[in-house]
Structures are given as structure tokens and as C-alpha cells.
């Protein structure tokens, strides 16, 4: 059930706070007199514009009156600003009465929770869940391969073999000139060059007689894996004037029937870039194999043999693939569905899928065909049979049944086997089309597409499914399914033990990484380009480095021993390579083998405070030439201190030219947002944003602006009315660490990302309970994640419509 859209702003919507308990108290005891009078005044003076129940009125005030301000703050705001046409005409007692009525009846989170009781909703797979589930499903139904999905003992870079002859597509083991590991594949081989000598490569000159069969030229093979950091389209670019065959996310074995991803026999020096775009899931390793050959040429040919393996990852610029994304290990290919689905519903501040549409249904059909085509293409290999195998039909039928069970994430009932497998195989024109139909029906079925469909499953099977989806966005693996089958998933302890096992899997890392990308809004921060005159050295390379540096920082904190949330907010170190260290005035990183790597460096005292001051975010939350306290303040408000913000009541553009040049950015923002109308939100936004005035438009630390000293200090009024002084980001971090509201907002966001349901559906006190144990654990993020997943896997309430009915308060 969709709740009204006004809650869509900010990520702290629908907070379950301590205030919820208070609301429960007030609605179960006799309402104070002021509420009745408030209702009367509201009806006379407010309802025309705001609607009888605060739902909003078209062409007047359209937004619903819903938010997370405290009652006193709401009363003060009403007293000063309402009614809009005669502000200031309400007596203080009248404003209080109206505020009390509004607060109790619909404004407060508690009122919203009461009006829209939470339950675990029927949800279909999100787009990410679909892609990950299909990838794992295809792997699960395939016979085990020698290559592990991930191997960790390999070195950075690709395994390289050079040959002293070029034969079209052939590599002769007797002609190996050199073997080793290349950190990156980015070479030019000029005649008489040092590189050719080192690799013992022969000259390219053709033998004297043109038709001579004598071997000439040289060639090379690179093998290993490429590791995608983020999910999305990766454009691979192989730059070479020579011939190549490249397999990416495919086995180069001709018996596998895999065509090369790029097959370039004929190349031209005028257009040496060969491109292919592949969709990859973040956090996984994919096999890559490159065959390259520099064919014999005439002496003095202007074309110099060369090869550069480059890519443009999501959010990145085109560059040679860095060593940290290459490994000499092995990996099995991952099937990544290419069909595009309509965007998931993010109206609640997180991605979930509680509605269906024509576009979605079409996407499920197209994706089912895509998977079916893949299955049919590799059918014999997947089913462990051969065209001439006398038992082929039986093996294919067994494969088909196995596929449906894996898709449904549980054993099939006899009726399902009959309807979803046997009947389809019997009526199809041939067995291939029969299997195709089985795959189509399985992937169109509600038992595959929905995560909360009641079916013929045991409680423990459902627990396993919920756990796996919370931590992996995927179906249970063999081990988890076995635990479910053996009834070993009944107690919180049993579930928690599986949760920590699942958490160690790369799929959990990938999902957690995407949470932090969401929390830090990294998916929407694209354009970091700055005024080239002011910041000539802020190059695309720096921007790519910054994104990688931020990712490395979050990864290291989350997966370190203490997994301490507080480090995320107040760490005095960050990750840098030489380029970043030089640009940001940081100590030189030590022990870096390649340019693609980063090392931990400690910033000069007091200059950095975790993600709050990471230059990637600071630069993204800036204008082209100046800082932007408003963008930074909005980010801190929503993500770090966890307050909801409504869209601005009036559109204001920040026009640099309209201000006196001698003003500081802070002075300009104060001037721009000084009206009472703006101050409703900017009283919160500005102090937070000003705390980051220590950083310029590219996130460099500064002590002056326009020759004037930075003034970053201001007083932030917490909702509890106590004023807090923020002199810089470190103060904001300490506040966010100890503030209950901030903690709860973070926990709720994490819950949403993992479970795709509201925590209120698991009991009104869910978030406060989670916060208590989070603090008790020393802010341990991994423990928090495991606890959320465990709690969601074993809900006290079932999928049935059990509202979060408030428990009557103790008298």
C-alpha cells in the first residue's frame, strides 16, 4: 500500500522515534482541551489551504502537513507565519492549540504511523535483486566449474605471456619469449625499444620473400579477472593498431561456444579504439582474456605496435584499467541480465517494488527470453549432457525441474512439477523449446518475481529467503537452504550464525557498499567538473581517484575489525595515491606498488573528519568555482543528522554576480536565506553547511576566503531546543554520533536498504531497540547489519495484515 507522496522528501521520512510512544500515550488518554480548540481554529483558518486532514489543497498549499519537527517548534512556526495571508494574528495559546491538533492528528511521525499502519508488504524483486538473483540462479543450475566465483590469492594485474611470433589466433608454447604479470596492459612497442628487448621480442620485418611461410611478428596473451566496483555499464576500450581477440565475462575456450566479446582482426591506425559495453554487477570478478598479435610488416612501417586496455566504469572517465581492478586469478563468468527494467519506486527514500506496471511486466518478459536464450545456447553444458547422449531427454527434464526449484527458492510440489515442467516439456514441439517454455514460465511466475509470496514452504525456508535477500539481494545458497531444510533456522541465534556467514560473502560486501553509495548519494553526484581557470589541476584523473578513495575508505572502515560507525564520521585519515596527496597537501602515501593503489594517510591535525570532509563529497557539493554551504548543509541535514526537509517554498537561484565581491560565501548565503519563509529549513541547513566552509570548491582545506579568515562556527538548534555550537565538521560528527535522532535515521536508512520494508512493520520499537544494541556494540556496523537481517528474517508478525498496533501504555 502506497503512502502519500509528501513523505518522499528526505530520507528520514516516517521516523519511528521515542516521540512515537508519546503519541500513543496522548491518543489513548483523553485529549487535552487545547486539541479540541485547535481543531476548531484549524477548521476556520487553516483547512481552506491545507485540507481538512492536512492533506493539502490543489493550487493552494499542495503538500501534506507531515514532518518531524517537535511540537514547540511547530507552534513557534505557526505563531510567526500562519495563516499565510495574516501571519502573526494568532495568539500564542491559539497557535499552541492548532500545533497540538495538527501534531497529534496527522503531522507527527507517530500520527502518520497510526494513520498508515505498517505491515510487511508484498514486494517483487527490485532491479538489483533481479539481476543478482538471476546471476546466482544461472550459476546454481550449472555444473560446478574449476574456477571459483572469486579467488583471493592472486596478484594485482594480469598474467602475461609474450610470443616471438605472430600467427593469426594461434599461440605456440614453443615460441614463448617472456612470462610475467603486467600490472596494467598499456604498452607501446617501438622498434629497437627497451620494451621489445626486455621481452625478447623479434623485429616485425617481413622475411625477404613475400609469400614465405617463415614465422615473423610477435604476439601476447593476457589472462585473469577484472573486478567491477560498481554495478552498471562498463565501456571497455582496447586501443591497438594490431589484431586482438578479447573475451570479457566469457571463457575463451572454443568448446564453450563463446564468441569473443571483441574480435578485431583488421585494425586501422586511424581508428585504433575498439569498444564494447558490458553491464557488470559491482563487487564481482569477471574473467578477461586478451589475445593480441602484431603481424609482420614492412620495414619502416609508420605503425608502432601498441595495446592499451582501458575502460570507462560507471561514474568514471575513460582510463587504463588500474591494477587494483585486475587480478591474475580465475573467475567463472557471471550471467548479467541486459534487459532494462523501469526504475524502482524510490518515493520512500529507498528502492523497493510494491507496484507493477506495463513496462515492468514487459521487462520481465524480455528478461525471461534473455535468460531462456542463454540457457538454450548453453543447454548441453548446463544440463551435463551432449547432443548424442542417449539419456539427453531425461537429463534435460531433470535440469528443467532443477531450474524451476532454484527459481522458486524451494522444492516444488508435485502439482507444480506437473504444471511448470512436465506438461510444458510434453506439449512443446521439441525438447529445446520445451526447456525454453519451462524457463519462461518460471521467470514470469509470482513465486520467482515476488519475495513475500506465501507458498508451500516451511517457515524456515521463508526465513532463509528473507535472510539471503536482506544480505545479498539474492536467493539462499546451498548451505543456507540445507539449514532451512534441516530446521536449523528457528532461533535468533541460529539465524544470526547464518547471518554472519552470509556477511563474509562478496555479495554482502557488494550490497553494503551500495548502501553507503546510497547514503552518501554517490549515484547522483556526477558532475564534479570545476572552473578550469581556478582549478586547472582538478582533472578527471583526480575525480576518478577521489571516488575510488572514498570507496576504499568506507570499505576499510566497514570491514575492519571494529567496523566502527564513528570512524566513518570522524576519522582523521583518508586514502590517497601520490596524485591525491600532492593535490590535497597530504603526507606522501607509502608502499604503493602501482598508480592504481591507495594507501592510508593521516591528514594534518584537525583537517579531516571522515566522510563529512571527504574531498569527493565536498567537491560534488560545491559550485563550479565556490563552495556551496547550502548543498553541503542539505546533505548533512538529510544523511548525517537525519532530518527531513521539504522542498523550498520559493525558488531561489544562487547568483554569484548579485552579491558584493567582498562578501564571503557565508555572508551571501545568510543574505539569500534570511526571510522567515526560508529560515524554516535554513535554520537547520545553514549552520551545518557553514561548518564545512573550511573547504573550497574542490575540497581543499583553507583558512581564508577572499583574503578573509574562514568563519565556520555557528549555533545549531537541535529539535530538543538545546543549542549546539559547531565550529567545524568534527563537532557535527560528534553530534551525529551521540544524537538519538541521527542514529535512528541512519539505522532506518540501513534497514530500508537491506530489507526493503519499513522497520515499523516489525514493531514500533524496532529502531530504538536496534539503536540500543548498536551503541552497546561500540557502533559496530557489521553487527548492526547482521541484527537487522536476523530481525527481518524472524519477524514476530507474519506477512498477514498485522498492523503495528500500538500497545496500550502502562498506566
Amino acid at each position, binding site marked *: *500500500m502506497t503512502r502519500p507522496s509528501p513523505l518522499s522528501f528526505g530520507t528520514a521520512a516516517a521516523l519511528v522515534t521515542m516521540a512515537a510512544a508519546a503519541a500513543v500515550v496522548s491518543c489513548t488518554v483523553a485529549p487535552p482541551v487545547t486539541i479540541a480548540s485547535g481543531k476548531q481554529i484549524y477548521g476556520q483558518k487553516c483547512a481552506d489551504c491545507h485540507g481538512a486532514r492536512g492533506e493539502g489543497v490543489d493550487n493552494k498549499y499542495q503538500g501534506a502537513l507531515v514532518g518531524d519537527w517537535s511540537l514547540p517548534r511547530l507552534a513557534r512556526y505557526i505563531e510567526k507565519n500562519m495563516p499565510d495571508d495574516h501571519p502573526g494574528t494568532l495568539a500564542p495559546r491559539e497557535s499552541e492549540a492548532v500545533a497540538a491538533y495538527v501534531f497529534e492528528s496527522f503531522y507527527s511521525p507517530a500520527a502518520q504511523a497510526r494513520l498508515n499502519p505498517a*505491515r510487511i*508488504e*508484498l514486494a517483487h524483486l527490485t532491479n538489483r535483486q533481479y539481476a543478482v538473483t538471476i546471476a546466482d540462479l544461472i550459476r546454481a543450475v550449472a555444473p560446478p566449474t574449476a574456477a571459483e566465483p572469486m579467488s583471493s590469492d592472486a596478484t594485482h594485474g594480469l598474467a602475461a605471456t609474450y610470443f616471438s611470433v605472430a600467427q*593469426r*589466433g594461434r599461440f605456440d608454447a614453443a615460441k614463448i619469449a617472456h612470462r610475467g604479470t603486467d600490472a596494467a596492459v598499456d604498452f607501446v612497442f617501438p622498434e629497437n625499444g627497451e620494451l621489445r628487448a626486455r621481452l625478447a621480442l623479434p623485429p616485425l620485418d*617481413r622475411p625477404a620473400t*613475400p*609469400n614465405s611461410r617463415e614465422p615473423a611478428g610477435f604476439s601476447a596473451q593476457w589472462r585473469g579477472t577484472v573486478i567491477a566496483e560498481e554495478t552498471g555499464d562498463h565501456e571497455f576500450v582496447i586501443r591497438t*593498431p*594490431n*589484431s586482438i581477440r578479447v573475451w570479457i565475462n566469457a571463457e575463451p575456450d572454443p568448446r564453450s561456444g563463446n564468441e569473443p566479446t571483441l*574480435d*578485431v*582482426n*583488421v*585494425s*586501422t*591506425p*586511424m*581508428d585504433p579504439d575498439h569498444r564494447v559495453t558490458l553491464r557488470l554487477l559491482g563487487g564481482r570478478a569477471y574473467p578477461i582474456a586478451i589475445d593480441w598479435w*602484431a*603481424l*609482420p*610488416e*614492412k620495414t619502416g*612501417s609508420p*605503425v608502432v605496435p601498441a595495446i592499451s586496455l582501458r575502460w570507462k566504469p560507471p561514474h568514471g572517465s575513460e582510463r587504463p584499467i588500474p591494477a587494483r581492478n585486475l587480478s591474475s586469478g580465475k573467475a567463472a563468468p557471471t550471467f548479467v541480465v541486459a534487459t532494462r527494467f523501469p526504475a524502482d519506486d524510490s518515493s520512500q527514500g529507498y528502492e523497493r517494488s*510494491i*507496484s*507493477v*506496471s*506495463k513496462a515492468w*511486466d514487459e521487462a520481465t*518478459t524480455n528478461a525471461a*527470453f534473455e535468460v*531462456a536464450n542463454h540457457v538454450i545456447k548453453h543447454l548441453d553444458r548446463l544440463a551435463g549432457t551432449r547432443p548424442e547422449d542417449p539419456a539427453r531427454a531425461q537429463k534435460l527434464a531433470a535440469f528443467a525441474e532443477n531450474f524451476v526449484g532454484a527459481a522458486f527458492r524451494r522444492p516444488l510440489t508435485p502439482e507444480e512439477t506437473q*504444471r*511448470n515442467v512436465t*506438461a*510444458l516439456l510434453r*506439449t*512443446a514441439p521439441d525438447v529445446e*523449446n520445451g526447456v*525454453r*517454455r519451462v524457463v*519462461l*514460465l518460471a521467470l*514470469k*511466475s*509470482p*513465486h520467482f518475481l*515476488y519475495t*513475500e*509470496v*506465501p*507458498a508451500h514452504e516451511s517457515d524456515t525456508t521463508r526465513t532463509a529467503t528473507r535472510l539471503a535477500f536482506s544480505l545479498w539481494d539474492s536467493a539462499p545458497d546451498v548451505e543456507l537452504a540445507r539449514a532451512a531444510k534441516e530446521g536449523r533456522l528457528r532461533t535468533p541465534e541460529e539465524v544470526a550464525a547464518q547471518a554472519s556467514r552470509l556477511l563474509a560473502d562478496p555479495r554482502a560486501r557488494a550490497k553494503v557498499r551500495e548502501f553507503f553509495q546510497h547514503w552518501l548519494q554517490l549515484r547522483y553526484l556526477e558532475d564534479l567538473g570545476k572552473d578550469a581557470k581556478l582549478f586547472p589541476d582538478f582533472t578527471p584523473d583526480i575525480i576518478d581517484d577521489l571516488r575510488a578513495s572514498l570507496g576504499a575508505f568506507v570499505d576499510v572502515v566497514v570491514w575492519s575489525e571494529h567496523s566502527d560507525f564513528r570512524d566513518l564520521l570522524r576519522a582523521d585519515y583518508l586514502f590517497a595515491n601520490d596524485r591525491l596527496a600532492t593535490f590535497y597537501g597530504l603526507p606522501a602515501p607509502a608502499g604503493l606498488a602501482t598508480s592504481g593503489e591507495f594507501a592510508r594517510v593521516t591528514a594534518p591535525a584537525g583537517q579531516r573528519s571522515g566522510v563529512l570532509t571527504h574531498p569527493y563529497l565536498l567537491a560534488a557539493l560545491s559550485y563550479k568555482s565556490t563552495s556551496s554551504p547550502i548543498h553541503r548543509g542539505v546533505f548533512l541535514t538529510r544523511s548525517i543528522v537525519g532530518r527531513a526537509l521539504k522542498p523550498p517554498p520559493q525558488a531561489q537561484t544562487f547568483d554569484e554576480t548579485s552579491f558584493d565581491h567582498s562578501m564571503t560565501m557565508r555572508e551571501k548565503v545568510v543574505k539569500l536565506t534570511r526571510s522567515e519563509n526560508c529560515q524554516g529549513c535554513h535554520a537547520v541547513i545553514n549552520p551545518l553547511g557553514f561548518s564545512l566552509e573550511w573547504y573550497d570548491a574542490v575540497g581543499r582545506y583553507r583558512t581564508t576566503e577572499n583574503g578573509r579568515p574562514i568563519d565556520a562556527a555557528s549555533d545549531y538548534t537541535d529539535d530538543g531546543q538545546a543549542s549546539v555550537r559547531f565550529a567545524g565538521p568534527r563537532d557535527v560528527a560528534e553530534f551525529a554520533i551521540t544524537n538519538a535522532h541521527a542514529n535512528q535515521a541512519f539505522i532506518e536508512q540501513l534497514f530500508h536498504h537491506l530489507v526493503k520494508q519499513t522497520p515499523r512493520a516489525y514493531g514500533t520499537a524496532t529502531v530504538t531497540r536496534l539503536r540500543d544494541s548498536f551503541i552497546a556494540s561500540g557502533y559496530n556496523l557489521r553487527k548492526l547489519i547482521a541484527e537487522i537481517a536476523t530481525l527481518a528474517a524472524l519477524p514476530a508478525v507474519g*506477512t*498477514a*495484515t498485522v498492523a503495528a498496533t500500538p500497545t496500550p501504555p502502562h498506566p
Partner: protein
Amino acid sequence: MTTMHRRAFIRQTGFSAAILPFITGLPSLALAAPARPRQRLVVVFSPNGTIPPAFWPDEVGRDFQLKEILSPLAPYRDRMLTLHGLSNKVRGDGDGHMRGMSCLLTGIELLPGNIMGGSGVPAGWASGISIDQEIKNYFQSRELTRTRFGSLEFGVGVQDRADPWTRMSYAGSGQPVAPISDPYQMHEKLYGQIKDRENLRSVLDPLKAELAKVRTMISAEDRRVLEEHESLVRQLEREITQSSSQTLRVTPPDLERGIADQNDNVPRLSRMQIDLLVNSFVNEMARVATLQYTKSVGGARMNWLDITDGHHGLSHEPDTDEAARKKLIKINTWFAGEVRYLADKLAATPEPGGDGSMLDHTMIVWTNELGKGNSHTLDNIPFVLLGGGFGFDMGRALKFDKVPHNRLHLALAHGAGHRIETFGKRDLCTAGPLALA
């Protein structure tokens, strides 16, 4: 304005010639123009040159005798043109075979590149579009002649490699179009949608049953989502029913199963591809096709003709090697037989919704990358035209004197209604289209 002639419209409205290019793009005008009779083009390629004395008629004009290699085409003598004296005059990088192949339909030089042939300078792909693709683009640009694919590129035994010896069709500079050698793959391309539709339709009943069952098991609030989902499935079902009512003129050919793409299957693969080609024409999937037998320097071993030597190797033997000569005549006669099979199929198929047979509306161009295998000459490239619909005066043996073959491409374009002034290398087009009408 539905029936007014374009010229009449222009006359009445007083548009000057200067704005003609603009108004011809108007859809209503295009529709108002009298429909041309349907036109199709098939380019058939066979490699390694021919044996000229056994190929070219001695006579010029209408009264000519077919020589041994062309003898299978005897029933179509009156609907043929043999064009002796066309030269591939494109020079530049690449060896004779490479230029023979990749300049054959493009009439333009190869790009610099990394492919070293048996002689000359290394080279890359052709630097321009080929005539089949040019005419396809022209057909596709007009509502009346647009088809689902526009063109289809068939191969027979073309090996799985990509270089200037294996590609004659180009979508543009440096953009070779790969022929599909596997008839099953071609069948899937042409008719896969229909099979998909049948497969999808077959799972809708059990899917509906599943959704209906799940609906009864969930809460009232969640039921709304399932009901919407069910209505989407019903909608899908209606769409499938509607789209399958647009039936094909002819059913897809039933291909013999399990014919692997390998040398000894070439005769069967050839017939399967020709069946698919004619079938795709009847079903209006394309109006342009290429049919490429092996490749330049193709070394097919025609065991089915009791010839165990590779074709390319044989083609290098000197004229004095009588055994090789006989074998090469036999090989080329076999290719003519395949052209005959294509012509027979087209002649036996009535033109859908039109007059005469499909052959009356289809021009077959059979060609080769070399004039003669052992000399590697690019003069006197074998060009045989067979069929109708392009307004050519058929039933003649013509002789020219080293005329650039670009002029034939221009004639084909003009015959298709596409009045371009040059094609390929501009200098080779100065004398305009070859006069074949």
C-alpha cells in the same frame, strides 16, 4: 491530397525545382507518387576468378551461345546479361585478393591497416559503403519500399574469421557487414519472434492459474498488486493474439536438422540458405540480399564433385595444367548450378500481389573478386546479371573495354530508382552509369 501526382502537385502549386529535394521527403507526397513495381537485388559471390574461355560467350549481342560454365543457366539465356570488360580499377593498399573482394561492391580504396597480404602494402577494411547496402538504405528510406530488415547477408561456408578477404558488404567506411553462414542462425533471425510468441503464449494459461492461486493466499491489501499483475498478463495475451493474426504469406521453411557448418555440407547449406532467402523475400523481410560462397582465397574442397584439392590452390595452377583447368570449370559450373537453383525458385514463385514471377522483379548479380585466378587480374571481372525489374534490356552478351565496375554499381542504383551521380571512387564514375537499358 491523396491521389494527386507529384508532378501535378508541383505544377499546380508552383514549387520551383530548387525546393524539390525538400518536398520529396513529405510522406504524403511519397504516398501520392505512383508506386514503382517491386524491385529486389541479390548479389551472389563465388571466389578465385573464373576460366575465361569457358565462361564468356564469344559473340556480342542477342545472338550468343552459353559456354560450359554458364550452361546450367541456359533456360534463362533470354533474361541474362553477360558483362565482359568490367575492371576493378580501385588501386591503393592491399593485395589483389583483398582489393578484389573488399573493393568489389564498394568501388573504393581500402583503409590503411594491419593486414598484410601476399604482396603489396598492409591494409584494412574498405573505406566506403557497398552498393547492396547503398540500395538497401535507399529502399529503407522510403515508406513504400521499407522492409523489416532491408537487407539480408547470407553466407555459405565463409569461415569464422573477419578480414578484407571475407567481407564484401560494407555499411560504411570501416564497417564490414558479416554474412550469416549458419542457416539455423538465419532462421532464428527471420522467424525467432514467431517461435518466441508461440512459446510465450504456451505458458500464459499456467501462469494465470498460478497468479489466481497466489491471489487467494494473500492479504486483501496485497491482493490489489496481484490483480494488477493478472490484468497485465491478460493484456499480454491479447497482444499476442493480435500480433499473431498478422500472418506470414508463407510459412518458414522446414530446415533439415543438424547440418553442421562445415566443408562437406556446403551443397546442402547452399540450398537451405537459398530457400531461406526466397522465403524471406516472399514474406517481405528484405529486398536486398547477398549470398557469399566461401571467401576470396576460399579453399573449399569440393569432395561432392570428386575434387579433393582446395579451390584456391587449384586456381593458382597455370593455364597449361589441363587437369586443374577441368576441375576449375567443374567448380565454377557448380556455382552456376546454385545460381540456377535460385533463379528457378524465384521464377516458380508468383510475385506476391503483383504481376508475373518473383524473378521478373529481382535482379541477380553473380560476380567474383578476380577475372582469372592464376593471374590475379582485376580486369574482366565476371559479372552476370539475371532476372528483371531494373529496366535493363536483358538477353544479351555485352563487351566493354576495361570500364570501371563502379559504373555498373551506378546502373544498379539508377535501376532501383536511386539516382546518385557517383558511387565509390569518384574518378571512376565520370562516364556515368553503364547503359544497360
